[in-house]
């Protein structure tokens, strides 16, 4: 949630931030798909390094990125430790042994590879999502990928309501406290209070959604047969270059992994 909740203060004029949203998403998708195929430190490490180097060109500041990405960092650490403990590869020197818990140099390397891979898969997507304006995305999806306007702009309007719902959730919590609910040790009762709060949120969301639908129809959204677009998202040379660079980088990473013999397909 924290990842999507508020728009990160980014520099929209940065060279990569300015790119077409569809180009950004595709550029992020290419390395992620390839990394899903293999678990090896070479391709993951190369791609992660390359994407980390690109961070400033996305117009995203390091402090903001770190603040926003701590859940991802936590996930990487958990994946690393989990794999280090549960892998079957327990060769090498023993580093830690406590009952059934055994971590060796080889198991730690296996864990680190898995963690690296998760980071390398996630980072491109995060950079793309953080720097995409939702309206631009809807425009591009409609124009370049022929997504129906009704779906694209309908979803866009619905997403605008997300921060309102977050605020409403807080108010509902306060209102329950005011009514004397909550603060129970009994988990069943706590669950019942939570359920009621969720229901109230849902009622509010449905009502807002209905109002939004009426407001959109009042401006001809339902009836529009020949919709035009006020903004013209362009897919230019720079956008194609971003795609090509991402593909090239991924190819280099795979080649390097194959050449060093590190390539290790998941399904084999």
């Amino acid at each position: 949630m924290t990842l999507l909740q508020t728009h990160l203060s980014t520099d929209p004029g940065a060279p990569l931030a300015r790119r077409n949203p569809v180009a950004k998403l595709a550029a992020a998708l290419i390395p992620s798909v390839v990394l899903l195929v293999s678990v090896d430190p070479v391709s993951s490490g190369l791609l992660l390094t390359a994407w980390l180097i690109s961070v400033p060109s996305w117009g995203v500041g390091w402090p903001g990125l770190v603040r926003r990405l701590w859940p991802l960092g936590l996930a990487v650490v958990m994946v690393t430790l989990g794999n280090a403990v549960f892998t079957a590869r327990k060769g090498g020197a023993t580093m830690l042994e406590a009952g059934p818990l055994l971590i060796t140099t080889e198991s730690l390397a296996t864990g680190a590879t898995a963690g690296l891979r998760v980071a390398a898969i996630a980072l491109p997507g995060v950079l793309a999502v953080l720097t995409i304006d939702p309206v631009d995305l809807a425009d591009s999806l409609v124009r370049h990928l022929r997504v129906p306007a009704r779906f694209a702009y309908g979803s866009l309007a619905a997403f605008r309501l997300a921060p309102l719902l977050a605020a409403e959730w807080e108010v509902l919590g306060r209102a329950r406290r005011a009514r004397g609910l909550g603060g129970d040790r009994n988990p069943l009762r706590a669950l019942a209070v939570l359920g009621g709060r969720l229901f109230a949120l849902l009622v509010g969301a449905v009502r807002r959604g209905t109002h939004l639908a009426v407001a959109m129809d009042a401006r001809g959204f339902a009836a529009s047969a020949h919709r035009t677009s006020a903004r013209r998202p362009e897919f230019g040379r720079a956008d194609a270059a971003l795609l090509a660079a991402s593909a090239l980088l991924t190819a280099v990473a795979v080649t390097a992994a194959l050449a060093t013999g590190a390539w290790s397909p998941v399904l084999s």
Partner: protein
Amino acid sequence: MTVPDRGAAVRVRGFGWRYAGRKAWACRGVDLDIAAGERVLLVGPSGAGKSTVLRAVAGLLDPETAAEQEGSVEVGGVPAAAARDRVGMLLQDPEASLVMSRSSDDVAFGLENAGVPAEEIWPRVDEALARVGFRHGRHRPTAALSGGEQQRLALAGALVRRPSVLVLDEPTANLDPAGTATVLSAVESALTGAGTTLLLVEHRVDAAAGLIDRVVVLEPGGGVVDDGPPAEVFGRRGAALAAAGVWVPTPWGPAAPPFRPGPGGDVVLTARDLSLTYPRTRRPALSSASLSVRRGTAVAVTGPNGSGKSTLAMLAAGLLPPDTGSVRLSGGPDRPLHRWRPRDLCRRVGTVFQDPEHQFVTRTARDELLVGPHRAGIPADAAARRADELLDRLRLTRLAGANPFTLSGGEKRRLSVAAVLATAPDLLVMDEPTFGQDARTWAELLELCVGLRAGGTAIVAVTHDEAFASALADERVTVSGGVPATAAEVRS
């Protein structure tokens, strides 16, 4: 596209509509002729079907939601459903009307839907923004606008389609006085020199009186019962309308109730040096606020939207932990109020929220009144007696078994207050209690507060409602930019 600014006539004949799942007709037997360019205010008590008539004129009633319908509604000589692009509509809640994240994009939305060529869109958007007096940049994020400015933007979004009929459904209901003035002046300037037909429902009739030249009175189930120039209609029916809860403008409506002082008493609540900054914001919502409230007095907290007055109320009610300072209530656990257990808190402090629905936690109105006492450990028979007494006092006995979410706006408000009073708290904190209420519920709320205060209850009311504050407040606190200033009014 239609010719700009030429009004269209509206013709309603024997119109009736019953929503699926409802026994009563939302409206029935409505006959109404509005000439092109006329500016009509539709008034009537709650439940008269005003919104249904507006939606019918805007062509937005979905036949699938009707159990039964009859009669016809025409705009410019064609059925309203086929004339949608000739009608512009503005709804109550600006938050739920805006689609795009940038201001100009939102105005352009209606033109895109109408298939207007891209090169014509931006000049028309700029013209519409100028017409409503929108002074922010084109790219201003819609989320960063105040409610009044959002509504102004939504008006531009309706006008940019050059509608022949403009339909406004309580456009200021969710706004503070400054926002109300903003929107009504935007409507006025937008209509100046234009021939657009205007059909308006607005419960702050006094504020909208300057916009209109004809008043039509609807009655629940009775269709149109009066029709004519404002002075005549209000002159004839002012008293009856006011008794039915309609806000009748000043020369014809009842006089504002006079101020009645509370008996006073010991200090019950002391708040010192309260500050709070919400997560992910830089500016404190409230800084070094102090407040002391005595039994048998009412404190009105006023100030513009976003000034921190609701934050002050939430802190005073023990519902938010402050960053610095603390709130203490005399008697009870020796802890700051925000660290009291909910069951202890609800016995001493009652909080009425701006939106009554936020407070509802059960399936029937009567159960709402039993929750607090049960949690506070009040014996069941005493709680039941008090519940029935409160239901009776607030005219809710008939609705005791109804689901709280299905009640009307005024009933919801009365129930939310009754539920809070069930534990007989000695401090009542209210956030905009009169917001959106009709004149009758308004007067009842005031009377109830005066009665409670006479019995020694302390009241803190956050309100934009100047008439309510003047009639009730023994003390005034004005919050601006997160800094409250107390002005004990010297009254004799």
